[in-house]
């Protein structure tokens, strides 16, 4: 016999279901008066440093239909590449930038829009720099465990080319599924849950 490691097991995930809006974005779902505003709707204020951008996200199922009942969360560094988190040990992030956003996809179009700033670069654990990116987490009815992925920026070709995470993607044709094209100040990112263009999801 040896000593026990005394580890617990992570609670199993269950789908967020069709009514995740009630809990996560109640004002959006029409339940007003409980919370002042939905968490995560505002990431920036007038003092936030960095280049203002918009990120338009759709989550598309295997039939090509955008999900109209999904909730999308994003998490990103500030313009200097620092996270607004206690686990960020490299310095203080911009106090006027939360780094975290949450939006429900529109019940008619399936789109959601984040108003944010373009993040800076930050190191991979081995010290190499990662390209600017946004971490994305998706839940919805029919999604049994929240899906992690990343969005990279289409106008950061040089940084993307040396990104250690993108470099790990074996089938190079799939790298493009993580890169959002830019049009004006807006990046458009379509996430495909399955099919020929299935987005690369992360076990992270």
């Amino acid at each position, binding site marked *: 016999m040896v000593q026990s490691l005394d580890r617990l097991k992570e609670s199993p995930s269950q789908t967020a279901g069709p009514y995740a809006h009630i809990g996560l974005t109640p004002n959006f779902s029409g339940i007003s008066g409980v919370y002042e505003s939905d968490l995560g709707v505002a990431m920036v204020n007038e003092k936030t440093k960095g280049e203002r951008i918009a990120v338009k996200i759709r989550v598309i199922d295997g039939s090509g239909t955008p999900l109209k009942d999904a909730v999308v969360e994003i998490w990103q560094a500030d313009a200097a590449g620092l996270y607004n988190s206690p686990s960020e040990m490299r310095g203080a992030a911009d106090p006027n930038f939360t780094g*975290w956003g949450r939006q429900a996809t529109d019940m008619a179009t399936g789109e959601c829009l984040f108003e944010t700033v373009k993040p800076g670069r930050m190191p991979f654990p081995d010290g190499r720099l990662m390209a600017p990116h946004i971490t994305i987490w998706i839940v919805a009815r029919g999604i049994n465990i929240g899906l992690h992925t990343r969005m990279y920026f289409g106008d950061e070709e040089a940084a993307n080319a040396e990104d250690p995470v993108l470099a790990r993607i074996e089938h190079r044709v799939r790298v493009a599924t993580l890169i959002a094209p830019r049009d004006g100040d807006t990046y458009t990112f379509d996430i495909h849950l399955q099919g020929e263009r299935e987005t690369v999801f992360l076990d992270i």
Partner: protein
Amino acid sequence: MTERMSNRRPETGAFFRRDLNAHPPAYAPIYKTSVLRSPRRALLSLDGTLSEITGPVFGHNILGELDNDLIHNFAKPGESAIGPRIIVYGKVLDERGKGVSGALLEFWQANAGGRYRHKKEGYIAALDPNFGGCGRTITDEDGSYAFRTIQPGPYPWPNGPNDWRPAHIHFSIFGHGFAQRLITQMYFEGDPMIWQCPIVRTIPDRAAIERLVAALDMEATIPMDARAYKFDIVLRGRRSSLFENRLEGN
């Protein structure tokens, strides 16, 4: 995002590997909606980077007085929601058994008749004008939390021709890193509907399902007021960064 309610030194290690065998697979045909919404290709496995070992923090200042009281937070003054009054309490722990302080919990549920307050909900059960169905709280220093609500009802849903959800409460949990992000559901001890439910049965392991079943706790019950259910939630553990941090500190 505001100050953390703790003087504990923040942890910066990467998270333990997620045991995907203890979670439902993405593709679970008994739950029909998962068929077209499930990635089919292998996930790209990575050890956590800064983007996943960090995460947002929520201060107690976001909380309103009734956020953890679903019996009253949508009710007219002097009125309350209809249904069996219960207290749900427990701890948010990580896989090392450590309490997770400052974790934001958000919960949502149907009313006592099994009806959600949502424009896409079509079940014939009545809405309760005094019940909204959402609440939230933040864990204490040792990971403890509690809230008050009514016990939700079971309800039918379109999947098979006669599928019913067991009574359940949805939970969304933020730990200390974005990699710990979790949404799950709490079920009630003794409910025979648990073992019939296709969504429950997407979890392949019976012992894992049992970790989502809250225990009735008569000792924590408030006499003549509310019964209590204990529901502990476990998030991924994380490695110590003692031997990992480079001197430069990243």
